[in-house]
């Protein structure tokens, strides 16, 4: 009886109605969000066409804009891996932002204090960034594994603790005395990530990001690690009975993810911003959460989705100064589509709860 339903379900997902296509929900949520933003634009006295046109022009038109967008994609992709990987093991890592911050500051500590051949120092800095990200998740991880404490609570707490720690460092011990804001000294020229031009000029972090996303895809879909991870993520008790070291798998995925977040921070510090300062991070760690969630089961989807978010991020500036709308409007752009997406998805995948009298 139920086997029959399985077949039916499979047929359904290949059905012909638009509503059943996987593309339906993302497209609808984007269109709905654009509609809302268009209304807001009209209220503000700007033509919606101009507004959206400026958004995409600012993100995609010209090599400079394109380069900014691509560079913005890198930390977003890495930060979403930091959510994606642990989530596969059933661990909801909300601490990406904190891990990213401590990763960045660690990379800066290395490049500001170690001298040597650039390749060595940069490698060391990147490793330090990963290490720091990893350390930032150790407490929530241990609390989860040893005490069963909800990681949602603990990673949020770690997030803010890490952010305050970094703020303390950049306004205190590591502050650039001549700077107007809390900031570290800039990374020495020779210890920055090398750039190259392939159509647009970007730093080599793009390879790291692409490699890690592709690697994650390969790891989760083609290796025994992936199968075991899936078992741990969807049913740890079964995995345990199958002889899989559940806690070890969770730890590996979580530490790997956190290392990605740290790496995102390190790469951004050494490849784009060259320093860690107040407000230097634009919440990539938080944005990684909806990206990972939107990517669903396919980690390769992280790249286009992160690119989409990067478009919003970089296009926002041009949109703002060309049309005069408040810069904060972009937060609506970032929040609303995901809000609509999760709602539509929930609506479609399971019928909503019936309201009883």
């Amino acid at each position, binding site marked *: *009886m*139920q*086997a*029959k*339903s*399985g*077949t*039916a*379900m*499979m047929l359904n997902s290949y059905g012909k109605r638009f509503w059943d296509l996987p593309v339906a929900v993302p497209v609808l949520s984007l269109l709905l969000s654009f509609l809302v933003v268009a209304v807001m634009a009209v209220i503000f006295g700007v033509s919606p066409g101009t507004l959206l046109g400026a958004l995409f022009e600012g993100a995609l038109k010209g090599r400079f804009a394109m380069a900014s967008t691509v560079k913005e994609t890198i930390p977003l992709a890495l930060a979403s891996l930091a959510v994606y990987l642990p989530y596969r093991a059933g661990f909801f890592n909300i601490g990406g932002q904190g891990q990213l911050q401590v990763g960045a500051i660690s990379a800066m500590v290395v490049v500001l204090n170690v001298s040597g051949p650039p390749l060595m120092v940069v490698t060391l800095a990147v490793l330090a960034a990963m290490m720091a990200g990893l350390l930032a998740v150790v407490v929530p991880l241990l609390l989860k594994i040893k005490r069963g404490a909800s990681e949602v609570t603990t990673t949020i707490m770690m997030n803010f603790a890490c952010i305050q720690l970094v703020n303390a460092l950049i306004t205190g011990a590591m502050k650039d005395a001549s700077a107007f804001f809390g900031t570290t000294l800039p990374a020495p020229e020779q210890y920055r990530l090398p750039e190259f031009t392939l159509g647009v000029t970007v730093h080599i972090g793009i390879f790291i990001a692409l490699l890690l996303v592709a690697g994650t895809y390969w790891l989760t879909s*083609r*290796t*025994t*690690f*992936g*199968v*075991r991870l*899936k*078992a741990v993520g*969807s*049913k740890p*008790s*079964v*995995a*345990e*009975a*199958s*002889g*899989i*070291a559940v806690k070890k798998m969770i730890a590996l995925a979580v530490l790997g993810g956190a290392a990605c977040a740290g790496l995102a921070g390190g790469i951004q510090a050494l490849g784009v911003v060259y320093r860690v300062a107040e407000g230097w991070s634009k919440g990539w760690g938080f944005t990684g959460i909806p990206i990972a969630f939107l990517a669903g089961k396919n980690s390769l989807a992280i790249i286009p989705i992160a690119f989409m978010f990067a478009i919003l991020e970089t296009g926002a500036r041009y949109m703002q100064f060309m049309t005069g709308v408040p810069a904060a409007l972009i937060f609506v752009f970032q929040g609303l589509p995901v809000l609509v997406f999760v709602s539509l998805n929930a609506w479609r995948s399971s019928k909503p709860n*019936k309201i*009883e*009298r």
Partner: protein
Amino acid sequence: MHDIISQTGLSKDAAASSCAVEMTGISKSFGDVRALDDIAFSLQAGEVRALVGENGAGKTTLMNILYGIYAADEGVIRLGGREIPHSWSPREAIRAGIGMIHQHFALISNHTVLENIVMPLLKWREISPSWKSHAKRVSEICREYHFQIDLQSRVEDLSMGERQQVEIVKALYQGAKVLILDEPTSVLTPQQTEALFRFLLILKKRGHSVVLVTHKLDETMQISDRITVLRGGKLIGTIEREQANPQIIARMMIERDWIARLKVAPLPDSAAVVLKVRNLSLNNEQGIRVLDDLSFHVRAGEIVGVAGVAGNGQVELSDALVGLRRVQQGAVEIEGINSTRHTVLQRRKAGLVFIPEDRHHRGVVLDMDIAENIVLNTISEKPYSRYGVLRSQVITDCAEEAISAYSIKTPGCRVPVGNLSGGNQQKIVMARALLREPRIIIACQPTRGLDFGATEYVRKKLLECAQRGIGILLISSDLDEILELSHRILVMFSGKIVSDLPVDRVNLDQLGLLMAGHGRNNQLD
């Protein structure tokens, strides 16, 4: 066959006025599965009704609809002749005098017994309930029906039997006139079952109606006035107890005759010991001793049955043997090698495999496909992977083979296991366990929740394994199963082995007493 089945469920001669419950034309679908199809069910005041059928027949679904947990897609429910409103919920069912006790108790384990009992009665506007008078009235009910529960203790500290009593008191306190019990005896000893049935008869005398959802035919015959049989979501019929016997009911349930008992082949004396357990003791997380100095062995080709009421250490025993829990004392030897400190993986490589008690808890990952589930244990070994990289073709071939060997009903091997029926899921668990010829199988409740066909299949498979020389430890609370399959029977009570006898020396009455903790078998070796 139809001559002995009077369709009383639909008969007009049942006086409508005395009808406590009348359900007509009830249909319900889950997704594309039609769980109930045009069911009619009526219940008189003061009767005990057995609702029987195989797993998946729709018994619980029908009762859940009556109780308002599910909403029916079609059909009408009348209570005392009045149609229920379209929006029917447990709250309204409770108010209308229907109480339901689920197989998995619906108790808030962090709240006290009294809070659990009183809560359904509380109205939202009742800011400050008078707990004292509630406690007094609940105590009265307890006294009246000879229940002994401390009203102030937390539910999480109670045994399963006590929790069931709490559920019953809760239903009565709500003024239930119709009491629905879903598989009430699955967690009880035979003696507790007796007590429950006596209590149900008292209820009946006082004019309550009872619906007993069960698949145990003996119980059905013992207590019910009438018996309603469902099969595959359809109503087969309702018969009076006097006209029924187990054969008739079984035929209605499964559409074929009562299956002849399987018989285990005798064990050669020369068989070597494959699993030896010495003085095994285990404390749980709360520091309570749940396994107490267990010693036994299993020989090659031998099936050793472990009987006992659920919750007497069986789960802990299997976990300890498989390597899921660390023991405090004692040793586990697999083919003469001390494996006490070995991991699950090491033990499996030594030839010990596990058929878990709860398919969904320990058996299959519902989100993963059939192929992945079948090779889950051996995924890291050749030929399924090389250097950590999966070999998809090999895995698919292996899964296809298992699908045909175990006749698993599925459109393909890449279908999520969650889409399969329980029986097919259990076959996957079996296929996985037997993928590499094991030396020992720890089989826990291998047929629980399966229908007749699947049960028969699993039991046959276990016998085959024994014939091939595999030692099997069969842990089951189904006495029939144990008696049917085992060479030797151990009885567990309260973490101890209280009896160890060859099957031909077992006395059924004594077994029941031992399971309930009465007496100790002096022939224990």
